[in-house]
């Protein structure tokens, strides 16, 4: 068999696979959205179940939340820059923006962990009331997603460095981008449902 025919068969197969994967990833995001939707519903239904324990108004610090939000939203923008650079096949720039994204992501998780530790120190840990259980579970589930996303970014930096911007690597980067922006949208939900109502 002539190698060029084999190569062509392989290339066609890969193209089809990558298209399917992008479609499948959207479906995965929908299942994840349902997971978050149920956690949101649980949070809202348990909003008043503070069991005479700490109330949200005493626990949240708007400035802290603003910083967290700023980090995460900026990281979405920087990921967008990385993707634009990938479209132009600029390897160094992709890596640069991915690392910047990673820094913002890390800062977000750091700020979130600080916030959690501070609450636990005040006796407002997840065991203190049903309300706090649902708060910690919802926000930490998002935080764990962000951490997994950061692992993904690290892997993408390595792949871009070693393999370059091949169609496969670009497809993975695209899907990771979907994931990252999705987490941004979820955070906007958390900001509007969890934090904002307490201050207005």
């Amino acid at each position: 068999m002539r190698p060029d025919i084999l190569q062509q068969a392989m290339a066609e197969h890969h193209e089809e696979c990558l298209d399917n994967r992008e479609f499948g990833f959207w479906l995965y995001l929908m299942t994840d959205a349902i997971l978050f939707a149920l956690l949101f519903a649980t949070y809202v239904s348990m909003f008043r179940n503070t069991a005479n324990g700490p109330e949200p108004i005493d626990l949240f610090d708007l400035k802290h939340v603003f910083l967290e939000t700023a980090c995460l939203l900026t990281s979405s923008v920087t990921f967008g820059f990385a993707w634009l650079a990938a479209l132009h096949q600029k390897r160094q720039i992709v890596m640069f923006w991915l690392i910047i994204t990673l820094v913002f992501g890390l800062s977000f998780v750091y700020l979130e962990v600080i916030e959690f530790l501070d609450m636990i120190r005040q006796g407002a840990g997840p065991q203190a009331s049903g309300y706090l259980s649902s708060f910690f579970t919802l926000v930490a589930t998002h935080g764990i997603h962000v951490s997994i996303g950061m692992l993904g970014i690290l892997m993408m930096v390595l792949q871009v460095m070693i393999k370059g911007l091949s169609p496969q690597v670009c497809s993975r980067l695209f899907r990771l981008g979907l994931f990252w922006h999705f987490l941004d949208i979820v955070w906007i939900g958390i900001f509007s449902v969890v934090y904002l109502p307490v201050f207005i």
Partner: protein
Amino acid sequence: MLGRLTIEALPFYSWVAMGGAVVTILTVVLAAGAVTWAGQWRYLWVEWLTSVDHKRIGVMYIVLALLMLVRGFIDAIMMRAQQAIALNNEGYLPPEHFEQIFTSHGTIMIFFMAMPFLTGLINVVVPQQLGARDVAFPFMNSVSLWLTAAGAGLMGISLVIGRFSTAGWTGYPPYSGIGYSPGVGVDYWIWALLVSGVGSTMTGINFITTILRCRAPGMKLMQMPLFVWTSFCTSILMAFAFPALTVVAVLLGLDRTLGMHFFTNELGGNMMNFANLIWIWGHPEVYILILPAFGVFSEVTAIFSKKRLFGYRSLVYATMVIALLSFTVWLHHFFTMGSSPNVNAIFGIATMIIAVPTGVKIFDWLFTMVRGRIIFHPAMLFTIGFIITFVIGGVTGVLLAIPPVDYLMHNTTFLVAHFHNMLIPGALFGYFAGTQLWFPKAFGFKLNEFWGKMVFYCWFIGFYLAFMPLYALGFLGMPRRLEQYTNPDWQSFLLVAFIGSCFVLVGIFSVFMQFYVSIRDRNENRDLTGDPWDGRTLEWATSSPAAPYNFAVIPRVSSVDAFWTLKKEGSAYPFPEQYPPIVMPARTGAGVFIGLFGFLVGFAAVWYIWWLAVLAMVGGMTVLIFRSCNDHAEEIIEPETIMRIESQRKAQLISGGQSVAMGAPL
């Protein structure tokens, strides 16, 4: 070091439990010994366990389902035996053990019998019906299988190490909370569900993508075989309902393990949230189980009535309507929780409305049979048995959908009779019919019909004897899950029910007898053409068993019964002069290892062995990361190999008496 795992975990508390443990260990040892004795470990690993071929994965799912059917049925007949004798005495099972048995019966039958069975059928059949070479994500398919197997493994090991949950298969808190169930049982239940639930979500995503994107050229949505349609709706339900199960199991786990208060009695917990969350998954789950069986019945009625399916479009729309409505009725599982009358009424009405599309389907199947030339193959018997029995179950379901009636019947054996009346004919009969129909496709020879009829008659008679008395007992006020009782009026009914379960025992024996006899006589029952029933859809266009790539030449589709049309045109079997190379996914052990790590995570978390849980988690992630960075997960099947396989196929077709179209265009 070993968390709360001590020597106490071994089942010395009852002889029966000890027996269960010994049987489990013996089964594993004997199976492993048999493979070693036959020297087949390498074959098993290379050809099956690491395979990403959808047909093999499907077969492995069904093997798992049949094993679990036996385990679940042993639980069932033990309960029937206990209730048959436990009038004014303790019977032979201690209460705690009886509770474990009804919990594991439900959990196994739903998650590890029915789910793998339907997933297996979908795997074997759907890609071939679509004219596709594989599913969209073959590796993910393998991961789904091994996560399901890992969950089943957790169920199995709970027989030997520790105890299983006593909280029923839905595990309602506060009883399933740490305060009332401090042991490991509920944790086994949670982790078995979590690990296998992730697998089911991925199966859903996989088949939505496969069905939407891998159809043969020309196949419009409204030309898909009905089994594909029902599999499609089931996949949508799997993808969108299983996250709810994940959430509710995680939240209960957090309550139990980290002392949170989602569903506890104190500190602001709300156990009613649990009922809501689990049934938001649980009601769609009923349709996940039943819809694929509806698809099988549709294929079977058309094939064995020798007619095209009546009302194809109405069947498709009915399936879609059922899938949609299934998300709107979850509250009927707990009318007695005390929602306002209006809320109960709305959910009651929504429930009754589901009977409408289901009724449409029943009439479509009946009209397919009208003036058909019906062949009473076992698959057809299951279909007819289903139609009769399912209508009875539907009627009792509409009865239960009336909230005031439900207040009377809630948690009685009437309910038990009702849902078995839906799931045994509505799901299991369909899976059996599918096995009878598609077995030759998977293995190349037909199943013995005598034993197939034995399976049907034993299950059919056994079902009526076992569950009709439970309707009566429900009216007499007998609660479900009763370990012993003092009302002498109940015993005669329970004895009849026990006799029914003995019929089912013969039915299950017949299932395996049928396999044995069919394998023994396989040379007389070869399916040489790949089309043993004069089929109508594309899976019958491949050889039996199908080549790894299913179709050397992808068929063009122009009508609902695609293969039927091709046969009429005389272009069903194209054999071109030469073939292009075919790219197929290469086998990989990564799925097996991810399953193994999933099992270890679950086991470690059950026993609080946190170092092992972390290690297994890291292990699983590492395998996944390496795998997802792999750019060369395919292999090429050379044209010479394809030519060799296809020439054999041609010779077989001719010896099977089939005329072959030569040199048809590519």
